């Protein structure tokens, strides 16, 4: 069983080594591409195993839990690994068109694969300190990717991103230290029992808040999100797409894991805070987006606003809400990465991402316009696209427990999202180009459109499939939510697991 769990992490690392050694040759980028394909295969194998067994766990180096490092995959972790691999593959294809040769020579593909490995590791680990290590793997790769290619803007963005993320990591690390001092274990499944047995529950809540702040910075929730709109609009589009899709979701995933598995002793306090944090995140994000006039800055603020929906699913803490949260997580990664991809292609055609300086894309590049409409309206929650079902589940979950205000805010934010999306539509696609040029696909270098259009079309197709045929995905999310709320299976599999 261990191999199934290790492969989704090992493959990207192997691809990173290969891509680094061949960084000065065209072969390097195809090594990265092949690595992404193999990652997808490995994660599909993992998914098949999880669907068959429910929860699977493997003890690294044969050290039995809770003493060794455990890798564990339940439904949520498995689907996150698969979606990471899908996003990784889409980005690897997109990068073929976008990333210039001298940046490839700096080791872009190797860093990208390390990033994917770090994200996958964070989803699969069952050990708190190991989670910290994966966070660091992910962080150092993301730091380098953010500033690769140089320039004042990127360095400025990099400084802010690095500074705030390092502080959050240190808060998380201190929390780990204190939790270990209190319980004497770091295995997440073991922690559930150990934390519940403690006399001093007040202290546990204090540590829970440290984790909430640490993960909250990563997830970019209110009021800790300021690093995100300061940095996500500066790197290459392939990079900002993979950041937008995956990195904040690792924070959300860690919140979901810790606040369903370990910190459930005082739900009335911790999850009540999360509700207000979520509502403010949703609202400030969408208001921030309304004030922006840059394609990527608008999308960046929308990440924040959408993160609120996911944490709201966790905060309401009912089966339906968590199910909505899981569904939202998966839907949002596909849609948001895709919107950043579209922004990149729009820049290739029209010359900028500043909405005041571009236009006319609907007339000159109708295919791109059609492919923008799908993720944009899915993000806003139009039926029958995937975002509709995600929002529907969250709103129904709120109404079910008679949280009227929560449901009201969720719907209002959906409405305001449409405003931003129509603004992008109107300014980038409908109005004529201010310089009077025709932003046709011919304006991109040959071959670029093909490489960049393929992942956009693929992800848009997935959005449509989830939208028109949501039943298996909703059922999957339901099982995932049940596993989160009643993690007996998770705990038993980890603590009783033999390699």
């Amino acid at each position: 069983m261990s191999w199934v769990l290790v492969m989704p992490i090992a493959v990207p690392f192997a691809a990173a080594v290969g891509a680094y050694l061949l960084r000065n040759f065209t072969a390097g980028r195809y090594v990265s591409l092949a690595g992404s394909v193999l990652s997808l295969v490995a994660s599909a194998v993992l998914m098949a195993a999880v669907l068959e067994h429910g929860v699977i766990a493997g003890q690294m180096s044969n050290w039995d839990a809770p003493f060794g490092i455990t890798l564990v995959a339940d439904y949520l972790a498995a689907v996150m690994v698969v979606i990471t691999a899908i996003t990784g593959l889409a980005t690897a294809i997109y990068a073929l068109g976008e990333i210039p040769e001298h940046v490839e020579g700096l080791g872009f593909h190797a860093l990208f694969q390390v990033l994917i490995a770090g994200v996958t590791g964070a989803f699969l680990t069952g050990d708190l300190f190991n989670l910290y290590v994966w966070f660091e793997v992910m962080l150092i790769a993301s730091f380098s990717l953010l500033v690769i290619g140089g320039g004042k803007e990127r360095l400025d963005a990099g400084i802010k991103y690095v500074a705030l993320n390092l502080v959050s990591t240190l808060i998380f690390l201190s929390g780990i230290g204190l939790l270990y001092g209190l319980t004497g274990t770091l295995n997440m499944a073991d922690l559930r029992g150990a934390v519940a047995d403690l006399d001093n529950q007040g202290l546990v809540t204090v540590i829970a808040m440290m984790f909430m702040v640490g993960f909250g910075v990563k997830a970019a929730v209110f009021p800790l999100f300021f690093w995100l709109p300061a940095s996500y609009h500066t790197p290459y589009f392939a990079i900002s797409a993979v950041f937008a899709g995956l990195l904040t979701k690792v924070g959300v995933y860690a919140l979901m894991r810790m606040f369903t598995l370990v910190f459930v002793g005082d739900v009335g306090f911790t999850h009540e805070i999360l509700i207000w944090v979520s509502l403010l995140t949703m609202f400030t994000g969408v208001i921030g987006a309304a004030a922006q006039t840059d394609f990527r800055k608008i999308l960046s603020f929308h990440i924040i606003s959408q993160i609120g929906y996911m944490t709201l699913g966790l905060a309401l803490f009912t089966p339906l809400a968590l199910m909505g949260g899981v569904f939202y997580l998966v839907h949002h990664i596909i849609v948001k990465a895709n919107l950043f991809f579209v922004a990149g292609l729009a820049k290739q055609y029209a010359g900028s991402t500043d909405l005041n300086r571009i236009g006319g894309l609907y007339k000159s590049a109708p295919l791109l316009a059609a492919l923008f409409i799908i993720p944009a309206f899915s993000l806003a929650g139009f039926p029958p696209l995937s975002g509709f079902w995600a929002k529907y589940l969250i709103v129904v979950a709120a109404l079910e427990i008679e949280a009227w205000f929560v449901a009201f805010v969720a719907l209002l934010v959906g409405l305001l999202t449409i405003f931003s999306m129509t603004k992008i539509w109107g300014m980038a696609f409908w109005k004529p180009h201010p310089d009077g040029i025709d932003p046709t696909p011919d304006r991109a270098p040959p071959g670029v459109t093909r490489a960049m259009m393929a992942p956009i079309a693929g992800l848009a197709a997935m959005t449509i499939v989830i939208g028109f045929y949501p039943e298996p995905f909703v059922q999957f999310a339901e099982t995932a939510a049940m596993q989160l709320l009643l993690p007996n299976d998770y705990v038993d599999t980890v603590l009783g697991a033999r390699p």
Partner: protein
Amino acid sequence: MEALTALVIGVLTAASVYLMLARTFMRFLFGLVLLSNAANLTIFASGRMTKGAPALVPYGEDAPLGVVGNALPQALVLTAIVIGFGLLAFTLALAFEAYRRMQTVDTDAMRFAEPKEDADT
């Protein structure tokens, strides 16, 4: 011993917060170093303090005899120190490069990614 360690961690954290509130990025960086050390000490202290009892197995035995120091936090703290060292080295290099390009380490003057005109909106 534990009270003293707690005091040291507290002082380090307080000093790091003070430094990180400064506008100069270099001060922020030094604050980060101190905070990193405070976090490492927290982990170290979480294994409880034992005096002069290293976790060593005597020759011919299977397990250490008597009460020995908890070796796990020491292993964790080593990992954390190494990782922290790497990240700080990167951050220092980044700060140097940023200074070379932007000619400033004043965070208020670093407005290249978010220029002033749309900062007020």
